């Protein structure tokens, strides 16, 4: 290695560990002196480049990171909370919507749905011992009483008729049970005087204080039931 190359190599990297560097120094005092000089210079350079580092830099870095990740976590927490609140709100609105809003557009639709929902739940043997007094006790909530027996009662109960308090009567008919609803005056459902589907027909009897809906098997003569109701029902208000 010539002298120029030797110097170039050491200037580029005074710690050059190359064997050829060592070799070039052996028996060449000038090269060896240069090597020592440049390494002396390197010590000065090293010292100058190692500027002092601000106190507490390391702890500040860790502190800043801790604060940052805390902030990110609380941001995340806030975000989760916001999502949870939104979901809860949406569920609340949804529940409100489904329970309070009318799904049925008419008393006829609702009556049929209610009828089929409870179909088969009543047995002919039920209702033993339901007297006119029991019926009138139940029906007083609706401000209704019956002057006389209206038939053989299988069941009488308070019912929700699309969210409204109502009276639900099941009476033994000629072919099948006849269902009678006594409901308050409704605004959100339209009234159909007569209605039917493939199996069941019904009629709505409108009174000033409320409506009476009568449903039964298609073969059933609902007119006679309507007549019976008309004859016996009394509205207290």
């Amino acid at each position, binding site marked *: 290695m010539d002298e120029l190359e030797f110097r*170039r190599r050491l*200037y580029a990297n005074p710690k050059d560990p190359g064997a050829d560097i060592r070799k070039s120094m052996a028996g060449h005092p000038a090269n060896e002196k240069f090597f020592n000089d440049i390494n002396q210079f390197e010590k000065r*350079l090293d010292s100058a480049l190692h500027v002092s580092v601000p106190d507490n830099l390391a702890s500040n870095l860790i502190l800043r990171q801790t604060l940052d990740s805390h902030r990110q976590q609380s941001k995340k927490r806030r975000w989760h909370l916001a999502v949870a609140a939104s979901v809860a709100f949406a569920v609340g609105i949804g529940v409100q919507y489904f329970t309070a809003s009318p799904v049925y557009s008419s008393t006829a639709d609702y009556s049929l749905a209610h009828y089929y929902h409870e179909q088969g739940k009543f047995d002919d043997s039920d209702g033993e011992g339901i007297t006119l007094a029991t019926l009138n006790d139940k029906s007083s909530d609706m401000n209704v009483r019956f002057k006389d027996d209206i038939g053989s009662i299988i069941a009488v109960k308070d019912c929700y008729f699309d969210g409204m308090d109502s009276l639900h009567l099941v009476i033994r008919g000629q072919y099948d049970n006849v269902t009678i609803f006594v409901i308050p005056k409704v605004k959100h459902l339209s009234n159909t005087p007569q209605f039917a589907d493939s199996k069941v027909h019904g009629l709505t009897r409108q009174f000033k204080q409320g409506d009476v809906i009568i449903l039964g098997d298609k073969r059933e003569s609902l007119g006679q039931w309507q007549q019976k109701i008309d004859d016996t029902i009394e509205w207290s208000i």
Partner: protein
Amino acid sequence: MASKQKRYEALVNALHADLYRYAFWLVHDQHVAEDLVQETFLRAWRALDSLKDQKAAKSWLITILRRENARRFERKQLDMSDYEEPSIVDNVSASTEQQLEDHWLRERIARLPADYREPLVLQVIGGFSGEEIASMLNLNKNTVMTRLFRARNQLKEAIDSEKLVKGQSNG
């Protein structure tokens, strides 16, 4: 989570000083350098999972810092002229001969062209090889070695001429 925290703290403790010095020689301003290091470590924390090779940590951090510095320039392009005349602020009062010497040499280092200074800092402070520096700075190795040679050569010449001046005035 706890182990990530531990890794981060280990990284900070092991490398913050070298990273700060590198930043300082990049920008010649203690406060800007400190900000850069803060920003770099914060980014490093967020991306810590992507650091698989612990040995590569230092060059990884330096890469983040260089990118961060480039962003700083993009943000304040108008301020760029402020950095044309590097000024080395250091406490020289109540200093030993060694400190005076360091101070003198620091001013010379600051006056080196940035292209020469950066490989030098990476070599001396970072302990990186010519190949490593070349890949970090997107240069070929010969270019890096030439710049390292020129950097030392210029500094050595400055020292020698200073000695000459001193020698003349003393003699």
